């Protein structure tokens, strides 16, 4: 995800200090991977250079960040365009799962054993996310749901491919 657009979107609510933006980014989007302060200020500097934000004069006081940032009309326009543009529905036609299955069949290894192991790994992650849903906040639950639906898609593909290994083997082996 674009950190600069996320920060820009947070800034659209109201003029903010870098610290506030980092705090809100970490709360809503960080999910255990906090944004380094350096990246926050570098991103804001780039946005200011490109005319998406304006940095107000530094306010007096201690601490590293005394500048308040304000989004520009161009910044708002960028956010509008970004939000209105659907994310690419990635077809994933060259997934590592598929490559592993084909290479296993080509080399005479057990593609079924690989798919079983992959299914078990996916299910472990599903259980972790299900636990997060049970114990976490609504934000956690919705993000866990997103992950679970993607895992579910992989699992359905794993099932279908398991059932078609014989036919696939005929296609990819001499």
């Amino acid at each position, binding site marked *: 995800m674009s950190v600069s657009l996320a920060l820009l979107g947070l800034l659209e609510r109201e003029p903010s200090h870098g610290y506030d933006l980092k705090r809100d980014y970490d709360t809503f989007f960080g999910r255990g991977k906090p944004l380094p302060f350096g990246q926050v200020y570098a991103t804001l500097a780039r946005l200011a250079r490109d005319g998406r934000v304006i940095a107000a004069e530094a306010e007096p006081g201690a601490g590293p960040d005394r500048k308040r940032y304000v989004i520009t009309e161009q910044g708002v326009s960028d956010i509008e365009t970004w939000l209105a543009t659907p994310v690419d529905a990635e077809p994933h036609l060259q997934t590592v799962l598929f490559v592993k299955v084909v290479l296993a069949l080509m080399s005479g290894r057990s593609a079924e054993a690989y798919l079983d192991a992959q299914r078990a790994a996916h299910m472990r992650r599903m259980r972790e996310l299900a636990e997060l849903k049970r114990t976490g906040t609504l934000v956690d639950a919705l993000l866990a749901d997103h992950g679970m639906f993607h895992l579910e898609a992989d699992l359905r593909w794993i099932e279908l491919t*398991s059932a078609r290994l014989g036919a696939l083997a005929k296609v990819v082996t001499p």
Partner: protein
Amino acid sequence: MSTSSSSAGSDQPAAARVLEAREVSLSFGQTPALRGASMSVATGEILAVMGPSGSGKSTLLHCLAGILLPDTGEIRFAGRRIDYLGENVRTGMRRDRFGFVFQFGQLVPELSVEENIALPLLLKGTRRADAVSRARGWLERLDLAGLERRRCGELSGGQAQRVALARGLVTDPEVLFADEPTGSLDSLTGERVMDLLVVAAREQNTSVVLVTHDPRVAAYADREIMVRDGKVTSGELIP
């Protein structure tokens, strides 16, 4: 991590296994449904039995529950073989020690919610007042308070499935068999039913055999096994 078909679950200590299938085979006429399926369930464990349609997972559940008898192989419950017991003994065992939840609640539509929940207790010979009292204890736990007198034919799908869950657990069974318990529900309602099922089973230390083709439902279990072509092809062991 994964295990072969013949050893799935066999590394568990014998005392921990409440239910076990050993090399179970069963055919319906010329059609094999199970072909040497082996697996086990630990006390208090929630086990998901997954697999494609027609793989044999529901047949395996019916064998484990003593509803069907295998042609060959063994079914053990609490350390004792049950596959050669007579129909009457198995019926009593199902009534007294097992609970069941199916995809379509299979409630009695003419009976009220509390009567449906109390039914297994009444069949066990519990006095009616006691049975209804225990049934009422489940209403609040499963978000059914206020519905006790409602006829089951008038319930929503989610309500009916929660009644079915209460009925399955009201006898405090050692094993709950759940066959696609959320299969007829939308995602959110299904999740609510699964949340309640897991909490109730954990509280009672009831083992659960959960047949499902849905990975999101299986994610509620402690581990899963895969049934394919009548065999258990993979399953993680409890760490």
